[in-house]
């Protein structure tokens, strides 16, 4: 599925950007909706390169954390520092694949064309991108008629079209079949190999084991644990992570 026509421009496109976005420092990040605190004084650091998995039970605040990191929302208090840039300033250098992909009411090809044009990228890359995610045979089809897995792959192709330095993924393989999961993991691994920093939310333990270099475990809006993957999966330190990995409910 890899394609020279795709990879070369992607690699070239990493060069710009005044200073690198990583390391990332998150300090005392708190998000409240009225009286409910959904993120409570979250602090962690991410180093350049690799893949960080954000894990935790439903409602732990993972999706909201991604949106804050991406600069789509403002926290109630606390600080996000992308190598000296605010989250808002970092948005154009990142891409977020949402938990529920939002596709334009256009053809598959037009969804990619739209982003390439809006972001002033080389329009000729469209076919390579669609080829890359295995949608080359669906270019003319209305995007909203794609299956769940195909829609996720199109959303991923659209994210890659912007040449992100950081790729934020919110459960990119939820409800997909094993082959589609593998396809998406392969694409993400290739992006990572080209130097894209991956931050991915997942509930899929197998996937977390396959992809993670590091895990940030959220529980009730707090960081329960941050650990290297090789340490986390065999020996989680926090009770919350232990219960989660054992399949015991921790909500």
């Amino acid at each position: 599925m890899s394609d020279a026509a795709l990879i070369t421009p992607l690699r070239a496109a990493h060069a710009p950007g005044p200073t690198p976005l990583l390391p990332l420092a998150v300090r005392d990040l708190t998000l409240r909706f009225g009286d409910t605190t959904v993120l409570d004084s979250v602090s962690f650091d991410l180093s350049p390169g690799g893949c960080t998995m954000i894990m935790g039970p439903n409602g732990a605040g993972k999706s909201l954390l991604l949106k804050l990191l991406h600069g789509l929302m403002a926290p109630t208090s606390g600080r996000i520092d992308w190598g000296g840039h605010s989250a808002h300033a970092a948005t154009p250098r990142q891409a977020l694949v949402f938990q529920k992909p939002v596709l334009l009411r256009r053809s598959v090809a037009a969804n990619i064309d739209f982003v390439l044009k809006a972001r002033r990228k080389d329009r000729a890359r469209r076919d390579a991108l669609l080829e890359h995610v295995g949608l080359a045979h669906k270019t003319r089809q209305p995007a909203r008629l794609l299956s769940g897995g195909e829609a996720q792959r199109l959303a991923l192709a659209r994210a890659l079209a912007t040449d992100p330095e950081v790729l934020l993924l919110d459960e990119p393989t939820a409800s997909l079949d094993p082959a589609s999961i593998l396809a998406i993991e392969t694409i993400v691994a290739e992006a990572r190999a080209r130097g894209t920093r991956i931050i991915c939310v997942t509930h899929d333990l197998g996937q977390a084991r396959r992809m993670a270099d590091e895990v940030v475990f959220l529980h009730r809006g707090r960081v329960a644990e941050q650990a290297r993957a090789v340490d986390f999966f065999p020996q989680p330190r926090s009770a919350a992570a232990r219960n989660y990995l054992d399949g015991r409910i921790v909500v």
Partner: protein
Amino acid sequence: MGEALGLAIGLVLSGDADLAEIVGLSLRVSLTATGLACLIGLPIGALVAIGRFPGRSAVLVLMNALMGLPPVVVGLLVYLQLSRSGPLGFLGLLYTPTAMIVAQTILIAPIVAALSRQVLEDLHVEYAEQFRSLCLTTTQTVQALIWDARYSLLTVGLAGFGRAVAEVGAVIIVGGNIDHLTRVMTTAIALETSKGELALALALGMILLVIALVVNGAVQTIRMSAVRQAHV
């Protein structure tokens, strides 16, 4: 009545020149007004749909209220502007098709604005976060929303046209129903009926009905093809 109906059908089938002239002017006035109303109403609808500014809810209330403007009131207001003693009287537009176009534009621009605001805002709710993630400019956002809502916006335009072509109050006041000059279908029906000339009135009535049917058929077809292409 039966006799009048027979005459009316005869008129339509024979392609009567007077009839054709009246229908032609009606379509010209109402289609032009619809086009102008879209040029004015669509950008306003789009701005209110995606804009967040103080007084926005007041603007929404105003837009929705203006949708129900009575045609006679619009006619009267335009008349006051265009009449010889009015501020725009020097233009000499009263009792011309242009005056009718102006009145109908004012009548339906709020309809286009209010309905397209609703359509675009619903779509924007769905797209907004993705668009912010992609760092689109406001212009890019508006263009994308209008393009992706094109089927719904077409039906908005048709709704405006339907209202314009069927109204009588505004055009009769500013147009004056002058034969061969400003006589359109609705004013002709009103006049002919009051004179007891039912044949021409009925013929025009039938044509208006057909236009209404065609407009609704078009709306239905657009909806169906939108559904087919997963546009809803």
